[in-house]
């Protein structure tokens, strides 16, 4: 070992800088995707096709339109450059494409005219196999592979006749199956014939493009959440109906786009843009974490040979903290830069602290909230005797006022993210409870299906989503008849369903977790409670109690890593407790007492207390709880 000092006869490691805690390392090196330029195609073209299961280091491109003619040109990509291979037997543009670089299928397309021709590639040459039933182009992908495939939609005649027709390939022939709900040329890419998604579309003028999305389960198509940005003629990659990437295309006719959106099974999220706009049938291959975009048009006119590679860099969300740093609890070392001996001690929630965050714009309490310490949303709240309907969004650096709720209220809860949120229940007119549910799409609120039972002062799954959330307990009215309820309802994205009741009816309890793995923390039953119940998706089980009974507190995290902070009884408190999946431990207090605050956060080591009530007035203050995975202590002689 180099660079060692001797300390009392033992070698001491010499470091020029302190180890960085994992949480800080993730902040310093976030896991994000980005597009980088790759090797150019040999033949520039649009309406090109690729294989759905290609990779950025082994992809296949075939067919397309060069600007003067349809082409059967076939090229293989090795991660660096494209090499020419044997051409398709029938030159065509806009075919469907499935398979891998060494076993691919080119399906239909425009020769012109539209051709029913279907060809398979074995890694060196193309062979004609059985034809499709309906000739078309603008297929924009396909599900499956050489031996089992599905294509949906496309254009059956120029200039703009689009179809809902869907066909299934069994390795020897094509069969018509259930149609798309909306006729269009739509991007669909998945290696599975029973789990895929079709996103966006090109349709007849004057509409031109749409943002419709449908999922395929092997039997039928079901409409789901639209794209954030309407578009067609994009590229795509994906591995299932819940993992899909859509990139480029045109959002307005003649206006190529660089936008990339990712689908995670419940929501579309806009992520890093392509380096240059690609449209008019850009080729796509790969997964949501490693994809390739090639060809298309980079402007409304010229055909492109450009290729871009999608990859992630940084520390992955599932990267284990253990072993990431060279920090070892118990280790002592000499920092040669600061000239200090230091020791590494235990970290985690017990050493976490609260720091002041950026104040919200409007002081309030009994508000709804959702999100994380760096991206959250608050809505509504109480300012006796008035009711708030204001919504504010936090982007990690500033709170911004955005569109108001349709119905101002308080004593309600929310789940989701700062761009996709649902809020539900609450009190609108004292003392009547509400069953109202509203959904936030990043720009406005829309009323959606009500709860079955109107309630207020509920607990909820704080890390739920717009398609999976849980509302438990609460009160039917307050104060008159303000007893506690044990009712529990689960949200599936379109409706609330009553599921297993809590063991102990409670109101004003905290919550944590998801719709299938949640915690119900404290509350009033009706006396102040320290009870803690765990939900497994079908039933509640009593688990370790809080150290101190509490209600109307903040809470965040998961079923196995949660935190509660502040709350009542009496005057608001500052007490904070951390849950490790087994028991609650008192950790650092809030600096300012607060109750009925909003909450954000993902674990017992990362949470935020948003606004609330300090015992005399509503406050706008924010506090942020963070805990490093280890701490460094400087050794002194005193």
């Amino acid at each position: 070992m180099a660079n060692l000092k001797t300390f009392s006869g033992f070698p001491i490691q010499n470091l020029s800088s302190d180890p960085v805690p994992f949480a800080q390392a993730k902040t310093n090196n976030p896991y994000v995707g980005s597009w980088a330029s790759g090797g150019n195609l040999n033949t520039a073209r649009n309406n090109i096709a690729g294989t759905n299961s290609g990779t950025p280091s082994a992809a296949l491109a075939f067919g397309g339109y060069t600007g003067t003619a349809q082409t059967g040109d076939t090229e293989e990509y090795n991660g660096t450059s494209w090499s020419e291979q044997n051409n398709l037997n029938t030159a065509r543009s806009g075919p469907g494409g499935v398979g891998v670089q060494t076993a691919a299928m080119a399906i239909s397309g425009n020769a012109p005219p539209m051709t029913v021709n279907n060809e398979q590639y074995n890694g060196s040459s193309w062979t004609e196999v059985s034809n499709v039933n309906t000739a078309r182009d603008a297929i924009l992908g396909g599900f499956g592979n050489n031996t089992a495939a599905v294509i949906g939609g496309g254009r059956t005649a120029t200039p703009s006749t689009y179809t809902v027709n869907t066909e299934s390939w069994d390795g020897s022939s094509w069969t018509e199956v259930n149609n798309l709900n909306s006729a269009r040329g739509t991007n669909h890419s998945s290696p599975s014939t029973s789990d895929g998604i079709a996103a966006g579309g090109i349709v007849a003028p004057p509409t031109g493009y749409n943002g419709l999305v449908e999922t395929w389960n092997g039997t039928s198509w079901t409409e789901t959440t639209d794209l954030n940005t309407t578009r067609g003629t994009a590229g795509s990659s994906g591995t299932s109906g819940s993992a899909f990437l859509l990139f480029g295309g045109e959002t307005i006719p003649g206006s190529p786009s660089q936008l990339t959106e990712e689908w995670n099974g419940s929501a579309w999220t806009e992520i890093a843009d392509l380096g240059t706009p690609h449209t008019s049938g850009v080729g796509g291959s790969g997964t949501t974490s490693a994809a390739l975009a090639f060809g298309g048009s980079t402007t409304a006119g010229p055909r492109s040979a450009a290729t871009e590679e999608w990859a992630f860099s940084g520390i992955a969300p599932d990267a284990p903290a253990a072993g990431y740093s060279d920090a070892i609890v118990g280790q002592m070392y000499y920092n040669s830069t600061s000239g200090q001996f230091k020791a590494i001690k235990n970290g985690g929630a017990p050493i976490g602290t609260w720091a002041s965050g950026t104040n919200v714009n409007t002081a309030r309490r009994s508000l709804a909230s959702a999100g994380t310490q760096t991206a959250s949303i608050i809505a509504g709240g109480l300012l006796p005797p008035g009711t708030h309907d204001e919504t504010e969004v936090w982007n990690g650096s500033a709170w911004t006022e955005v569109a108001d709720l349709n119905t101002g209220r308080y004593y309600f809860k929310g789940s989701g993210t700062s761009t996709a949120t649902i809020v539900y229940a609450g009190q609108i007119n004292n003392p009547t409870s509400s069953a109202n549910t509203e959904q936030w799409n990043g720009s406005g609120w829309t009323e959606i299906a009500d709860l079955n039972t109107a309630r207020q002062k509920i607990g909820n799954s704080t890390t739920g989503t717009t398609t999976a959330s849980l509302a438990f307990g609460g009160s039917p009215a307050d104060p008159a008849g303000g007893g506690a309820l044990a009712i529990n309802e689960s949200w599936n994205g379109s409706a609330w369903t009553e599921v297993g009741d809590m063991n102990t009816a409670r109101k004003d309890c905290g919550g944590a977790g998801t719709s299938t793995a949640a915690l119900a923390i404290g509350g009033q039953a009706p006396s102040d409670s320290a009870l803690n119940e765990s939900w497994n998706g079908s039933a509640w089980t009593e688990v370790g109690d809080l150290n101190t009974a509490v209600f109307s507190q903040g809470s965040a995290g998961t079923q196995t890593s949660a935190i509660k902070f502040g709350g009542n009884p009496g005057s608001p408190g500052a007490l904070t407790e951390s849950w490790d999946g087994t028991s609650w431990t008192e950790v650092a207090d809030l600096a300012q007492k607060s109750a009925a605050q909003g909450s954000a956060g993902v674990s017992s080591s990362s949470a935020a207390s948003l606004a609330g009530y300090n015992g005399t007035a509503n406050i706008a203050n924010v506090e942020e709880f963070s805990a490093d995975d280890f701490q460094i202590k400087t050794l002194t002689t005193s």
Partner: protein
Amino acid sequence: MAYKYCTATNWGKNFFTHEERKQFHLSGHPGDVWVVGDNLYGDQWIGKVSGAIKTQAEAQAIVTGEIEAAQAAYDALSADKQALQTRPAIYNLP
């Protein structure tokens, strides 16, 4: 534990940091009153936030005055409005 007392307005981000919370006791109270651990770091923080030093009695008087004002406001509310919150209670600073 010995404390110092001051008033300062919480401006938000970086008014107090995680590092400072590890270095000294800090608790906020009505009337922008702060109870601060009496050590070097606490003194530095008071300087950072331009805190106005108070005696314990002065700080207590501010807090009590704020709570009494809140109590009066509460008492003036109708019964149904009062039901939305508890009556603020006077307490002693440490």
